[in-house]
């Protein structure tokens, strides 16, 4: 009975890593689509969202089944409950990847690329955060998870810089207003993805230590 439970836990673990890989791919595609104006890739990132949603349902079912049938305690219970929370954040990241891709499609015939400014840096930073929080989960690496939580400020700062520079773009010429707003949305999505990565990292910390990061401070 116990070995079956262990196998189920391992399966859950693998499914979570799989979902992590899916959101990494989705956001990677979205960023590439944004940088290279690749509409096909943008469409691919949008279609990925459905798969990510499906994976979320699957993992959710798996977790509930484990809770009901095995009545886990201690570390196992923490893993399952944090998995339940983590997938919500992961699913939101998938949504944002799709949102960014939609804007890329909308901006198809606008030469926005040289106006991106801080956005490539934000994209790079958030992708790294996502990679690291999934890595932290895979390796149960507490330090790495803490590091991801700290790095959220970098993305937040970048967002503020971007917001101000877009504000001045609008001030200069109202014609660019619509485009600037779209770019602001993209920047906001990246900032949100950073937040979700932070959340995931916090759940990784919880699953390892049983404590919430905020409680300790």
């Amino acid at each position, binding site marked *: 009975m116990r070995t079956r439970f262990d196998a189920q836990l391992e399966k859950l673990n693998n499914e979570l*890593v*799989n979902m992590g*890989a*899916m959101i*990494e791919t989705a956001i990677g595609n979205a960023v590439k689509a944004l940088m290279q104006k690749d509409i096909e890739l943008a469409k691919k990132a949008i279609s990925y969202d459905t798969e990510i949603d499906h994976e979320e349902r699957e993992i959710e079912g798996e977790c509930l089944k484990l809770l009901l049938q095995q009545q886990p305690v201690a570390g196992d219970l923490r893993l399952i409950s944090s998995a339940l929370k983590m997938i919500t954040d992961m699913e939101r990241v998938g949504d944002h990847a799709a949102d960014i891709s939609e804007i890329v499609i909308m901006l198809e015939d606008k030469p926005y690329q040289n106006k991106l400014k801080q956005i490539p840096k934000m994209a790079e930073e958030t992708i790294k955060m996502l990679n690291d929080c*999934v890595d932290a989960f895979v390796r149960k690496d507490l330090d790495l998870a803490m590091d991801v939580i700290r790095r959220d400020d970098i993305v937040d700062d970048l967002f503020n810089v971007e917001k101000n520079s877009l504000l001045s773009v609008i001030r200069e010429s109202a014609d660019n207003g619509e485009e600037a707003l779209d770019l602001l949305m993209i920047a906001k999505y990246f900032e949100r993805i950073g937040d979700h990565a932070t959340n995931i990292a916090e759940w990784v910390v919880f699953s390892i230590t049983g404590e919430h990061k905020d409680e300790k401070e």
Partner: protein
Amino acid sequence: MAVTDGVRQYMTGAGPGETPHGRKERVYGSMRNKIYWNMVVLSVVTILLTSVIILMVSYHVYVGQIQAGVRNEAIQIENGYRQAREPMEYLNSLATVGESMRITIIAPDGTVEYDSEADAALMENHSDRPEVMEALESGYSEDRRLSETFGKETYYFAVLMDNGKVLRVSNTMDSLAGLYAQMMPVLVMLSVLVLLFALPLAAKMTKKLVEPLNNLDLNNPVPMAEYEEITPLMKRLSDQNRQIHEQIALLRRKQEEFTAIMENMSEGLVVLDQHLNILSVNKSAVRLLKAKAGDYQDKNLLLLSRNLRIKESVEYALLGRHTDAIWEEEELQVLTSPVKDEGRVKGAVLLVLDVSERLKAERSRKEFSANVSHELKTPLTSISGFAEMMEQGMVRSSDMKVFAGKIHAEALHLIKLVQDIIELSKLDEGITNYDKEQVDLKKTARMAVNRLALQAKEKQITVNVEGDSAMVYGIPQMLGELLYNLVENAIKYNKDGGSVTIRTVPERGAAVLSVTDTGIGIPEDSQERVFERFYRVDKSHSKKISGTGLGLSIVKHVAEYHKANIELVSQLGQGTCITVRFPCLES
């Protein structure tokens, strides 16, 4: 892998009664218990059988003695009775003496005349008693009858006396069952005593019997002194032990060979089962997939690489298909193949190759063709333009010569370009029609200088050839081409009135050639790239100095062909020095 599993199962040494998979097996009784209980049963059976036989034998003796006693008594009483004057008194005296036997006198008609224990008058007629009837006929008789009382038996002996009366003497004795009942307490006592003695003895003996077996060293079986019956078993065991050791050693060697091959190959290799679990993975795979170093055995593929394209490829392979893809971004070629056993897919093999070199070569090939077309097109366009003007009669006859000269110059440039390209592709192929021979670099340098004397004169450049003759084992035409290109560059990119110095120095069997000019020099960021095909420092196509951009590329190729090193030292506005170091003649 199957091989690994085999070894691992030997290694884990699962405990008795437990298979390597943790399943409980039926537990067999110990030999010790079996022997012990057999001994106990044996002792109990022995006790019971012995007592039964002893009882039967002693009962037989007991009955015989009682019967003999009764018979003797009867004969004596008969005698006494016959001789006694007062027979009745004699009988009564016997009774008072305390005779234990019962004496009865029966008249020929069956009337009881005397009985020592009952009143004769009250007794019924005895004529129907078998012993009486028989005694009347044949003189004497005996009979045994079970009396009503359980466990007692009566023995009768009857004698026909002279007076025609029958004397019957009888005695009661215990029956067999009765005797048993009487003996039972003794028997039980005896059994308990024997068992009390036998049980510890049995335990001790069992232990002694089993001990040598328990003390067997199964890892090192030697024939036993105690039991020769075990010897064939031990011999077999020792043979099998040896075989197993040999097989383990063989397996281990194979495993080590496999690991060595896997670890030393530059290609990444991953073997997976059908659940995407990694059965084995080599270092190259970990490096090429940019995973963190660690143990990935028995882990899921996703933990090695979260690149979903890899997972996809492996999943394709698990459906029984081969995949082969080149990922330009990662500079990897990824191949997957299914592993089949009896027609069913049991896993997949993933092979990862580093194709960065290949992609680079491909890119430079593409670049080369694009460049060649461009370089060929420019002079051809000029020629076509001039020719068209002449054709249309737009050129005055006095200018005809000038135009023809221009066409000629462009054509010469084209020829040079084509020659260079042919030379380069020859070098690319690595095949030449020439044979290697001893070549004097100094002589070759002089020849190159002579060919370029006119160009040098035009720019008033002094060309010096210095140093001793240095011998190189190589292809003279190619080395001539190398020197020609070096010297040509040194003149072309020189200032008017400058100088070019060619030095050839023999150095312990090797040769060093250097060409130094006092020219315009090469900017630092271009120094790396001047050996590339069609690379020209002056990118504006104004072409102040004509050239194909292939000269140094040819130099590089010739040097590579001769296994020589090229060093470039240059300072902008000061000049350039290119040194070519040829290896020893022998090599």
